[in-house]
């Protein structure tokens, strides 16, 4: 029988996601770039191109900053 308690149990025990930093960053960049693309441009083609650019910029700059910080000990 459906109940709020059973739904809560299912959510708590089966709906968890333990991921590392890189996939979390990819997921965040993807979702954010979709919203930025939709809000910033007016035609579907422009939205897709701008969203792709924002996604590549997010991931690329994060990787670049990671390599810049790599030799730093603190």
């Amino acid at each position: 029988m459906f109940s709020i308690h059973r739904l809560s149990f299912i959510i708590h025990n089966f709906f968890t996601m333990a991921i590392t930093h890189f996939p979390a960053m990819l997921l965040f960049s993807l979702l954010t770039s979709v919203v930025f693309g939709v809000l910033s441009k007016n035609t579907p083609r422009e939205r897709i191109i701008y969203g792709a650019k924002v996604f590549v910029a997010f991931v690329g700059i994060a990787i670049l900053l990671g390599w810049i910080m790599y030799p730093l000990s603190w």
Partner: protein
Amino acid sequence: MAKRPAEAETFPKTNNARARAAVTQPNTGQLVWLCVAGWLIPGCGHFILGKKGRAFILGITIIVMFLFGLAMKGEFYAMQSASILQSLGCLGEMCVGVAMPAAKFFGYSGGDPFFVSADYGTAFLVSAGMLNVLTILDAYDIAMGRKP
């Protein structure tokens, strides 16, 4: 072909744009309702304005981001907190609308700070709220006629 005078080329277009803006601009109550609806349900503001495709994409994206935050056991900040950053984080999470009280209603206790992805989850929760704020402002601009 006869050449039109310069004034006739510019004034009619300007007057038409002003007249169009004056007719389509909603009143304050409609704008407030639009922003509140957009806050409560992500994408609802665009849906009210007839931009159903944008409403669907924005709503799904923001809700999915919030759900990922819950799945990663992100923390729900408390408004009354010693740290102002945590209070601001609480405001950010509340900007998603009914999603936060709905999660609490279904038993989400506020996250597990010792879970491996908890910090990322908290970032997802707050960012979903911030993206909803951008969405509300976009709906407001569309209602005011500033963008299509």
